[in-house]
């Protein structure tokens, strides 16, 4: 599915290095988690996979289903089936949810969307996410509460049907009930699409109570320093990142 090989990158037009020789392999149907303290490059990694304009890859490759993503622009990456649920979704006034999603589905499928089926599917997904039907016609993320923004990301995910889902701090700004609703919708999607892989980026293990990971990676100073299973996330919850020897060594080296 996704293979990141020796990836190093920096902020464009600066010398500020963010990721350093990072490698990660995610197979079909696997759920991986990247955890780490603030400022270690977790969100940057998600943006680089998606081709964000602010970052420059210095070396390495990102291969998605045998295609080198670094040769493609952001929209082409999304059309291959990668979806990034953003930590702080952008507000876009004047462009309605339904209008932009209809256009996006048309561009992904390369054919006209049947309006009736589209509205029915939107309504069903909105109901499952406890979103009101007026979400169809509201501008993207304009005037939404924190919970509505995150649910809207999950709504888009369900409509666009990706093969790889990246959840960048889905749990930030969400109350417990809303987090449950979002995660149960994602789990239902994963049940229906068994080959879909997930990359979760988070500070806290709370979200992992609802979406069970196969692997947990700890990122520090732009590289993965430790990999384990769910128990590693539990260890961090109990003792904090400072309990990880590799972080202490890494910080010491820096």
């Amino acid at each position: 599915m996704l293979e990141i090989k020796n990836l190093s990158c920096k902020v464009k037009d600066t010398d500020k290095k963010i990721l350093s020789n990072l490698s990660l392999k995610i197979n079909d149907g696997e759920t991986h988690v990247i955890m780490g303290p603030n400022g270690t490059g977790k969100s940057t990694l998600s943006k680089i996979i998606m081709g964000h304009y602010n970052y420059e890859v210095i070396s390495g490759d990102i291969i998605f289903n045998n295609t080198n993503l670094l040769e493609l622009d952001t929209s082409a990456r999304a059309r291959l089936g990668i979806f990034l649920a953003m930590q702080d979704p952008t507000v876009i006034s004047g462009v309605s949810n339904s209008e932009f999603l209809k256009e996006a589905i048309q561009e992904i499928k390369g054919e006209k969307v049947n309006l009736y089926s589209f509205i029915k599917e939107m309504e069903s997904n909105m109901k499952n996410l406890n979103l009101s039907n007026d979400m169809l016609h509201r501008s993207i993320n304009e005037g939404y509460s924190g919970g509505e923004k995150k649910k809207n990301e999950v709504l888009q995910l369900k409509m666009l049907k990706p093969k790889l889902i990246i959840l960048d701090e889905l749990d930030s700004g969400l109350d417990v009930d809303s987090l449950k609703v979002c995660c149960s919708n994602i789990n239902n999607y994963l049940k229906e699409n068994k080959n879909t892989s997930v990359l979760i980026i988070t500070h806290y293990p709370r979200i992992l109570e609802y979406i069970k990971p196969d692997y947990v990676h700890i990122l520090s100073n732009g590289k993965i320093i430790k990999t384990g299973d769910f128990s590693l996330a539990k260890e961090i919850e109990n003792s904090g990142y400072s309990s990880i020897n590799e972080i202490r060594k890494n910080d010491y080296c820096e």
Partner: protein
Amino acid sequence: MIIVNKIIEKNSIINIYQEDVSIDINAKCIVEIYHYVIDKDTNIKINLNCQGACIYYHYSNINYNDHIVNIKIYHNEKNTISNFYNHGVNVLDNNLSFLVDGIISKDMDGSICNQENQIINVSNGRSTICPNLLIDCYDVNSSHSAYIGNFNLDKLFYLQSRGLTIDTSYHLLIKGFLIQNKNFKDLENNNDFKVFLDEILKIRGG
């Protein structure tokens, strides 16, 4: 020069295409105006002549040559309200100027005067915005803002990250920026509005 010259005395929603505008609101009512202009100078004069008179004015302009948009809003009574949303897209390397004056004279207490102005330069146009508030009264609530530039790259990134091409993303942003009617579906059979929508489709950038 064609002028839409109106005296309004009840709640109204008005769509205006291309013309200059002179409107007097002479009753306590809410007036909502959507004004679409392609490539010409525009003069707009609004008189709020009755307590409780309230106007929401949405001005949208697609510009190809050097043009000036002159807007004057006179608060001639106490407790009058004006909210102006002026959006322009300057397509070529020309000068688009928004000169917007909100005028509240002495003793017009309790009035509210807001204006938000934005010009998107698609090429290397030289745009100007003068958002003036000429206020001779203490008990007034007012605000003004001005933005000249291109669309925020985060907006383009967000749309592209959902699979939209750069062209489609840019088109959606321009349409959302210029078509300020929430219920514009009702207008799609209107010939003047169709001309404006078709003009949006011609704009390329990003």
